[in-house]
């Protein structure tokens, strides 16, 4: 791990800088720390910072940019014939990278010297076999152009690594020297260090923005690729979902969206009344003893991972729904169903709805309740006619947040709802029967991205379009909900 060594070396230099800076500052003040502008440690940190930070930033940037530059150069030099065989440029490049790794490993294990590795031209089957011996992942026989590219890849990487080491090392030394030059008893070391720390703090807080940008960009580009291969009108308005790995798939989103919304609706139909009534009882009626027991128990439901709910749907709720309801009524024979997934998701959302509603109900001023009681209203009349209407915007916000959760939930639907898309062409009955299996947007994102299909095919890329749709829907719901809740809170502040 040469990168690790570079990092360690830079840190080592930084540490030396720390002590050197400290000593130099003390020296300039004649050994009397009181005559320094800042505490001696700050001079040390100043030197450390100047040594380490620029060097590591450049290192990070280099690591981020260099691989893609090398990829482009080699990718461009690949002959068209090699690409035609492999399917797409990115796939061939993956092959090249694997071959390069294998060459590295071969050298490391002493099976080849670097000379042979660089000039290998012999029989390809033999080369493949020799590289496979290293334990590297080589899937197919390496072709001549791939080997060439791999060798070039190694050369370029070597050059890049060399210059990276040089530049980073020089930067560290330059920072070290500059810091020591600046160090003097009147130098405002504390202010400089604090400005540096503040910059780090700002950088840390921008990660939230970077994440959002990353999410949007990563899905945007691939969605663009998808729409190049598949008409967007057919994606958004298509009523049939029938992916086919041989191509010629029908990838209409509507059946998936219907399944998502239907299951979310069932979940909310369970979670909203139960959660709301539980919150009302706990905040308005329950004595301290009941509250001390029931509240944490309901909150435990919130801490249970969704995979547990998924398993619960699979091994308990699914069979119960099928054996006790669906089969006796002749409505279906599947353990996977809208009802199963909806019920379990509803249970998952109960604590979510109840704790949000609890906060919101508690935010209604006591004066409102007193006013109502003072007029001779019963407790339930007060709740129904004063507290709930006053809390309504907040509760609507909570329900929207719960809906966004339900729409984005994955594991419960993967394990409880099934993989078959709603069949619009088979009539209304098949689509609204809650005891039929029905798949959702999230289930299909998982299945399309974990399947074995070619990454560049529309069958895989559709997952990104689905993901972007999901992101936009949930984002819209969240923004709306947060806006409503914030407005509501302002009303009583």
């Amino acid at each position, binding site marked *: 791990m040469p990168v690790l060594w570079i990092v360690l070396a830079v840190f080592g230099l930084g540490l030396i800088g720390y002590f050197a800076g400290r000593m130099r500052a003390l020296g300039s003040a004649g050994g009397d720390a009181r005559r320094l502008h800042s505490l001696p440690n700050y001079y040390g940190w100043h030197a450390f910072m100047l040594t380490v930070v620029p060097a590591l930033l450049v290192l990070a940037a280099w690591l*981020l940019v260099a691989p893609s530059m090398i990829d482009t150069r080699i990718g461009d030099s690949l002959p068209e014939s090699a690409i035609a065989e492999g399917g797409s440029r990115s796939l061939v490049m993956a092959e090249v990278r694997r071959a390069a790794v294998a060459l590295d490993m071969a050298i490391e294990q002493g099976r080849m010297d670097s000379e042979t590795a660089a000039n290998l031209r012999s029989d390809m089957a033999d080369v493949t076999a020799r590289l496979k011996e290293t334990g590297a992942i080589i899937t197919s026989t390496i072709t001549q152009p791939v080997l060439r590219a791999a060798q070039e890849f190694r050369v370029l990487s070597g050059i890049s690594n060399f210059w990276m080491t040089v530049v980073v090392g020089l930067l560290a030394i330059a920072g070290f020297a500059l810091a020591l030059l600046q160090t003097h008893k009147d130098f405002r070391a504390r202010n400089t260090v604090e400005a540096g720390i503040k910059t780090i703090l700002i950088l840390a807080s921008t990660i939230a923005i970077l994440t959002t940008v990353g999410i949007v960009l990563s899905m945007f580009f691939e969605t663009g690729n998808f729409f190049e291969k598949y008409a967007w009108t057919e994606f958004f308005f298509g009523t049939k979902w029938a992916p086919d790995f041989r191509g010629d798939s029908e990838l209409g989103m509507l059946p998936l969206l219907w399944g998502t919304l239907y299951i979310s609706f069932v979940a909310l139909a369970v979670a909203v009344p139960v959660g709301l009534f539980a919150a009302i*009882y706990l905040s308005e009626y329950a004595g301290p003893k009941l509250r001390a027991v029931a509240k944490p128990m309901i909150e435990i*439901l919130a801490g249970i991972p969704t995979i547990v709910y998924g398993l619960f749907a699979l091994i308990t709720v699914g069979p119960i729904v099928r054996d006790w309801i669906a089969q006796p009524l002749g409505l279906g024979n599947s353990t996977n169903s809208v009802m199963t997934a909806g019920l379990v998701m509803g249970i998952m959302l109960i604590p979510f709805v109840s704790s949000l509603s609890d906060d919101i109900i508690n935010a209604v001023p006591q004066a409102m309740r007193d006013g109502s009681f003072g007029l001779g209203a019963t407790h339930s009349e007060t709740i129904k006619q004063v507290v709930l209407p006053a809390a309504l915007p907040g509760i609507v916000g909570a329900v929207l947040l719960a809906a966004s*959760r339900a729409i984005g939930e994955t594991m419960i639907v993967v394990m409880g709802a099934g993989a078959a898309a709603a069949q619009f062409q088979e009539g209304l009955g098949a689509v609204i029967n809650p005891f039929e299996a029905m798949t959702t947007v*999230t289930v299909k994102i*998982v299945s399309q991205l974990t399947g074995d299909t070619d990454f560049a095919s529309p069958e895989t890329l559709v997952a990104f379009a689905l993901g972007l749709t999901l992101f936009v829907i949930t*984002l819209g719901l969240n923004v709306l909900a947060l806006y409503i809740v914030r407005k509501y809170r302002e009303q009583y502040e």
Partner: protein
Amino acid sequence: MTDATANTPAAPKEGKHAGSLFDADARTQKRNASEARFRALGLGAIGIGVAALIVLLVSILSQGLPAFQQTFITLDVYLDEAKLDKNGERDIEKIKKVSTFGYAPLIKNAMTSRNEELGIDMAALGVSDKEMSAMVSKEAAAQLRRFVIANPDRIGDTVEFEFLASGRIDGYYKGRVTLESAERDSNVSPGQLQYADALKEGGALSTHFNWGFLTMADASENRPEAAGIGVAMIGSLYMMLVVLFLALPIGVAASIYLEEFAPKNWFTDMIEVNISNLAAVPSIVFGILGLAIFINYAGLPQSAPIVGGLVLTLMTLPTIIISTRASLKSVPPSIRDAALGVGASKMQSVFHHVLPLAMPGILTGTIIGLAQALGETAPLMLIGMVAFVREFPSAPPEGFFDPASALPVQVYNWTTRADPAFVERASGAIIVLLCFLLCMNFLAIILRRRFERRW
């Protein structure tokens, strides 16, 4: 005067509130009945919530607890030199050449001799030789081979081994397989079950706690008895380490900036909006992010804990930032003023006074964030952690780049397999996962109780 009215409760009085207070009028009775109904609804809702929790836990526990028990068959295996080391050279490379197929006859011989010892008549039970060999797990030969390679000097001795019984035999003692179901099962015959009973009577077969479940790696489709959560636990541990070492410092730094230094401007607003939205973005979207950025763009390996850790870090950050900001906010401004008043810089007042006081709250939030990350499944599936991993990852830091599984993904992986024994394994793994979560939440509660400060 007053007595008179008290004694005549029906005395009609002026106004709308005629009648005594002691008698609820019809309307009040109706209203009180509706009040009672409303209360019952509330209580019912709480009942549903609590009942759901209990049913869920009971169903998982009842399904999963058997996974910690396993049926073993004890055999005295003669390590035949003629089969394992024909030349008698004890050359480890040559011994390694003998595959697990070479070890199978040894186990078969050991079973035959055990039968003779116990006086079990295989013909009477209708158990063929092949069926007899199928009594022990396919893992047994591998176990034997590992032992021989580790102790080549024991070749020629007779050594007592405890082998895993095959999944169906194990299922027989857990009620999953019965004599009736065995009739219809191509993988097990009733004769084998009777044979197992005979072995049990003879003391060669026993069921006890199975450490292997916690320490072993995943096993292939047809040997559920050998599947364990060792690799998954290591993978989860590595990811939690990555999350802890990235999310905690970044989250605390971001919170300090936002809470203590950030000016009120569009940039700060944008960060705030982003954080609150990221907290509600579906987890699977983070998986897509991880796949596109960390694997496809940055070229990090699939199934690696480092990628999982990075994805989970991004997911956990909002949680940590929100709780850290809350605990920074709860430190009263008087503390900051006091520090500033003796001439400390803003930075010093924050790092020397505010941050230490807020630390318990920050740690509590971090633990809760970690607990969330530990149970997260969907994003890890997208970055390839569903893959079948049998090799333990090496020690950090290289281990972060080795393929590994994760506890929740392992659970999902097992639920997709055909053999019902894997459902038991999945539930068992869930119990382990829930135990971890329980411990983490317990720790968080203790921290909060222990250090909670009221200003």
